[in-house]
């Protein structure tokens, strides 16, 4: 009887893994094709775009740049300076000091001649108390608004900024990002271009600034980072941004716009209640909630994506920091998917429910679990001496080749589209990384993802029953508010 059950399970798993590997291959090949098509169209369209106008045109929308800062005293002045010098006509820079323990606020006050004002605003989204809103006496810093508030985390800081923002569009960025001076003009274009659908958000590519030369807010010379983790992330970012998001944006299935560089429609963000401060994946959660709102109200909409290299950031090359980041990403994904279970395979939500959500739950959320199970399975087959172990080795090899193909293609896309890493030596390094990555870094990533699952189950990061009730309260509050307004 037991041996029957054992064989039965082996059978079932065998089939599952076969189906999985087949679907993985098909999906990645489809993604590659879609992203190639999208890239071709984008480059074609770009030839007809004249960005010169947008800076001065009265028709271009205003942009509020929201940059939360926590203990950034060392770099905040320089960062604010570079945000203020972006090339655009109508924009404001809102820096939110999220209860820093260092001298972030003092430095800002001193360098930009700030003074506390009696700025009146309506706290549409509930946040931690605001201690003061500062503006500059100096007319050349007229674009700058500094908010000083009590610490409440990134999402809470952004929400405070959203309450105060005066412009049509929000640009949520990490304050330490390097933004190219024409980044606003490029990111604003998708909002302006669409005629029949409402563009609710636009995402951009994030490049890796480690080991690169930076001048006047632009990376002038690209170099591949020295460490394995750094190189790995270069490839990973290519894959994620140039291939993944590009393909998803073609079918309007984007579920995530990176919190480090994303543009949103202000009125809609306010309508859905801003960022949700109780999750660690606030950037993904907001996008999903906005999409959900549009689907539920049956308004045609679109999410845009701009593949031009406009924003760069230093990624962690330290294993410990990276592991924490990945753990957090995984928890954020799980939490978002849990919060929006109503979308799962629900035809009412169109592509979001039928394609994006299932993809994320299988290939992003469950990927580490599936991979570990698959490996264990093959090991068991080996131990029991089952002949089908050979097939599974074949499948493993196949997956390896697939990862090579996908990574190589994303590097190729970068070369064809932008060709930033011009040095042949750098290319060789990247190719080596692609070959070795599945053995060196990938197992670590899988392990960190699994730890994210474990931490989620343990209830780290204030999840558990709390998040559900918290969300519900936010929803209820929302309806009460709209009633009050009406």
């Amino acid at each position, binding site marked *: 009887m037991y041996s029957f059950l054992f*064989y039965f399970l082996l*059978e079932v798993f065998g089939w599952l893994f076969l189906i999985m590997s*087949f679907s993985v291959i098909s999906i990645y090949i489809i993604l590659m094709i879609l992203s190639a098509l999208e890239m071709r169209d984008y480059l074609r369209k770009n*030839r007809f775009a004249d960005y010169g106008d947008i800076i001065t045109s009265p*028709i271009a929308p205003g942009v509020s740049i929201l940059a939360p800062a926590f203990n950034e005293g060392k770099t905040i002045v320089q960062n604010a300076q570079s945000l203020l010098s972006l090339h655009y006509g109508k924009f404001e820079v809102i820096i939110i000091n999220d209860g820093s323990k260092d001298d972030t606020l003092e430095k800002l006050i001193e360098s930009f001649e700030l003074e506390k*004002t*009696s700025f009146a605003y309506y706290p549409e989204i509930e946040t931690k108390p605001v201690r003061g809103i500062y503006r500059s006496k100096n*007319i050349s810093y*007229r674009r700058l608004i500094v908010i000083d508030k009590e610490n409440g985390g990134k999402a809470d800081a952004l929400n405070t900024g959203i309450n105060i923002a005066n412009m049509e569009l929000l640009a949520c960025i990490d304050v330490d990002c390097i933004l190219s001076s024409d980044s606003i003009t490029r990111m604003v274009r998708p909002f302006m271009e669409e*005629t029949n659908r409402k563009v609710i958000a636009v995402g951009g590519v994030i490049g890796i600034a480690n080991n690169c030369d930076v001048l006047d807010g632009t990376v002038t010379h690209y170099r591949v980072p020295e460490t394995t983790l750094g190189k790995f992330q270069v490839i990973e970012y290519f894959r994620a941004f140039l291939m993944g998001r590009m393909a998803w944006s073609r079918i309007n299935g984007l579920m995530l716009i990176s919190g480090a560089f994303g543009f949103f429609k202000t009125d809609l963000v306010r309508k859905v209640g801003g960022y949700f401060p109780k999750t660690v994946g606030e950037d993904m959660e907001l996008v999903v909630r906005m999409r959900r709102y549009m689907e539920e109200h049956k308004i045609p909409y679109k999410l845009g994506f701009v593949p031009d290299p406009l924003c760069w950031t230093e990624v962690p090359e330290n294993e410990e920091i990276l592991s924490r980041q990945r753990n957090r990403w995984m928890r954020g994904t799980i939490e978002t998917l849990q919060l929006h279970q109503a979308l799962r395979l629900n035809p009412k939500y169109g592509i979001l429910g039928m394609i994006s959500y299932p993809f994320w739950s299988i290939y992003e959320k469950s990927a580490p679990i599936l991979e570990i199970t698959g490996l264990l399975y093959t090991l068991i087959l080996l131990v029991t001496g089952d002949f089908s172990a050979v097939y599974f080795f074949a499948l493993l090899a196949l997956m390896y080749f697939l990862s090579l193909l996908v990574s190589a293609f994303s590097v190729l896309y970068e070369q064809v589209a932008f060709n930033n890493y011009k040095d042949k030596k750098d290319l060789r390094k990247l190719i080596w990384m692609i070959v070795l990555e599945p053995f060196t870094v990938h197992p670590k990533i899988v392990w960190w993802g699994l730890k994210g699952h474990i931490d989620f189950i343990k209830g780290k990061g204030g999840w558990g029953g709390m998040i559900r009730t918290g969300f519900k309260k936010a929803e209820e509050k929302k309806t009460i508010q709209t009633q009050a307004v009406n």
Partner: protein
Amino acid sequence: MRLDLRIFLIISLSFGWTRLEAQEGIIPQDSVGFGEFLILQEEVPGLNYRWQIRDKLLPEVILSDTLFLFAKTDSGYFSRPIEDFGKLKEMESKLAADSLDYTLRLFVFADEFKWEGAREYLANLVRNGDYMPVFEERDTSEDLVVLAKKTPYSPFLKFKLLFVSDFKLFIVTAVIIFFFTISTIMIIFMIILKVRKSNKENLIKEYEQLVIEPLTNLLFEKDLEEINAMKPDDFYSYFPSDLLKKLLFKEVLIEKIIGLNKKMKGEFKGKLKLIYQRLELDKMSIQSLKSKKWHKVAEGLVEINEMDLVDALPEVKKHTNSDNFHVRSQAVATLLNLSEKVDLNFLKDQTFPLSDWQQMNYLRIIKFVSNVKPLKLEVLFDSKNQSIRIFGIKLVRMLGRIDLIEKLAMISQEVGKEEQIEILETYETLGAHMEIDFINNCLKSEYEDLAFAAAKAAHSLGDTRSVTLIYNRLESEHLSFRLRKQFLKTLSALDHSRFDQATLGTSDPITKQIRAHILDPMLRHV
């Protein structure tokens, strides 16, 4: 003797049924059948038989036959105990051939039994599972189905696993083949693409070098008239003649001439245009308008626009209502730029909504051409397309056409809320004091955005009636934060004492905050 055997078997028929159970039921219950059954079995453990012959003398052949090994006893000759029932027939025929008086004796081990006893013994064996009866001759030629029917059931798990794992092999092979074909196709495709691209790039580089000399020579050595007067042969002799037939070379020429045209001034512009036409590149540009690929069409439009190919305008006009956003935009931009008289009727009839991006581009061109050409903006007000009507109103504001305020006033009553908001903004920018009645009317609106726009306009244009209207609404209604803030701002600008009245006496904290905001000198100039 044969007869004897038969009698022995027939007698058995007269005996009643013995107790039988399922498995043993297959053993025949008559002596003849039982005999046949035993022959079929060949051997049954413990069961044997002997031949008894009653004749006094046996022929030597039989006596010496090792098959029988007859031995003489008191009651005649007895054969050795034989276990192989399969030989029974053969032996009987031997004995019968010599017409001997023979009988068959059945034994279970050493004890003799009647056939019923032997049957009982065999049935016991079968019942206990100690013996598996054979039902058919081994070299059977019978139907397999019949065989199978008689085979008792036994579960055979392994069989299923084997089947499935073979199927798995099939699937795995299919997946592998699928993967490798697709990736090979993709890689080959990419390589072809890359090779073609780099070939093309090399050629372009080569051609770029080749066009420098003829262009510089023509631009610096010849006057406009000289180029014009040149004979075709002389003109073409500047260029490598074999390459002039090549499409790619012409494309490079087009790109380079247009590039120069953008960066050059004065007489050079005219010369470039003339060269462009003499090389018949203008025909190519016009030809590309007929392409099925949208980017070709758009490129053609850009070329026409850059090189002022006025002759192509009728062709361009056909594209103003194209499905493709970029074609549409470029066509409209070209038309606006090149038309002798800016006739906006084609824009008025456009059915697609105007995006902000298009509005921005058209605005730039219209701004530019409105300085040199007469412009009838007001046709846009009659468009059936709301976004175009709104664009028309915006244009009045952005081009500062104060002369059209009267027209706006005429339509302001019938149009929708969005247009009214635009009109209010236009009044505000152009300082249209005479339209204060309309502004005051809008101040009363329940539609927040309209009232907001009206309040903004009233900030600079308002009169005493606006003050009363705003004050009354502030006192009697619960307004949204945004509207309240704008109302108070306008009020403070129009009548400060009324503003004090509205804000000082109140206990409402929000109103107090707004008052502080408005009075804060730091926030004044923002």
